[in-house]
């Protein structure tokens, strides 16, 4: 997962350099569902199928709590919430056609302050 060889602490740009995003996206290896289950299983010394089962249960609980209108907070990580976006009027810049966009609810994740501090320690990748 983590490849320390990719990091180069000294090359941290201060000014805006957009190109580095594409480079990062090439480097990033997405940890898929199965990889996560395997990693958690190895940590807790439990069989993978049980972890899979519990992960599914966690997701279900999280969803049901969110649907009920609650904020689900994981200490030290962040909180999940459904946020309502009010209806608004959008104007097409070219045709000047006005469109009424209806209200909607979106999933919102807000990282915790402690996670933010931790993340500050990561040097920027070129």
């Amino acid at each position: 997962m983590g490849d320390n060889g990719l990091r180069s602490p000294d090359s941290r740009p201060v000014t805006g350099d957009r190109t580095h995003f594409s480079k990062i996206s090439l480097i990033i290896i997405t940890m898929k569902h199965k990889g996560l289950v395997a990693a958690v299983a190895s940590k807790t010394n439990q069989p993978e199928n049980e972890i899979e089962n519990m992960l599914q249960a966690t997701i279900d609980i999280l969803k049901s709590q969110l649907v009920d209108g609650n904020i689900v907070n994981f200490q030290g990580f962040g909180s999940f919430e459904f946020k309502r976006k009010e209806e608004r009027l959008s104007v097409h810049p070219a045709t000047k056609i006005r469109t009424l966009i209806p209200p909607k609810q979106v999933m919102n994740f807000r990282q915790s302050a402690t996670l933010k501090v931790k993340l500050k320690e990561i040097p920027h990748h070129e």
Partner: protein
Amino acid sequence: MSKEKINAAEIVELLAQHAAVSKKSADDFLKAFITTIEETLMSNDSVKINGLGTFKLQWNEARKSVDVNTGAEIVIDGYYKVVFTPDAALKELANEPYEHLQPVLLDEVETAEPATSDEITEPDQTPLKHFNEQADEIKDILSEINALNDNVEPEIKESKKNENQDTTVKNVNNSHSKEDFQPEKLRRFPSYKRNNNNDFLFIGIMLGGLLIYLLIDFDVFSILTKYLDSHRFRQEVVRYPENQFVLPDNIPVDTLLSDTSLLEADSVLQQDTVVLQKQEQDELQLLFDQPRVYKEFIATEEVIPGSRLTRIAERHYGVKEFWVYIYEANQDQFYSPDEIEPGMVLRIPKLNPKIADKNNPRCMEYALKLHDLYLER
């Protein structure tokens, strides 16, 4: 709407119930779960969880800002931020209460604005309003008339009279009345005409059928040709007496038995028609072989989009095969007969009636021959 905050401990409890595991293992799992995600993110990987979404790190660029209190310029360092992108299922779930709502186009803006401007100018034109009411009344009357569908004309006249009473708004009135009545008239008259046309067409077809039947039944064609040929023969016998000596071999027995003078006349008649036909054909062939020079024109026509040479020919000569002659007359404008372009002005030549005889199969044959010749080029 006050939102209740659910913390990790409550989640653990629910999880233990839900997955039927001990609280401890549930707690262990959740901690391991969170830390694994965190660690993965720390090593700048993204984490994808099926049925939930993707956690990812986002680099926020360093930027200059101003201290709100002191007004001094400060630089906010670039930093990473965890962003969560919900997958499609979760997005839908989140938006469930509002999913029936659709964006509404409000492009009546343009139409609404002129309306308001009209309202501004309205006070000067109060008679117009008055008139509009009257127009509505007329429309109502018209709809009634439509329903009844009789005594149309008198009532329209009446309503027109009503309009004319109000002289102040006469002009506007008229324009409106035109708008009201024109569609009415347009609708009524063509249908009338069409009926008449149908009647005429039917009668024509019947008469034509009858005529053809009679012609076939009484063998009128042969009688006519015989009469004509005998007439011609009498004239020609004087000119070419030698025709009398040529007798065809296969004379029917009936004719032999009949009057000798008649026999003579008949046989010579047959011979003569053959000769005549030959002469005619040769004449035609000569005409065909002659280079055609078009000096007289019956019309000129500008090509419009979608028109074809064949259609133009059909319009002017009644036979679409004769397009070749139009083509010949306007050859200087064409590169190929297929390339007829809007804007070209075609001269429609006057044709020699002998060449352009649609009842003569040879003429048609020749036209088709030309057709093949020009299309091959």
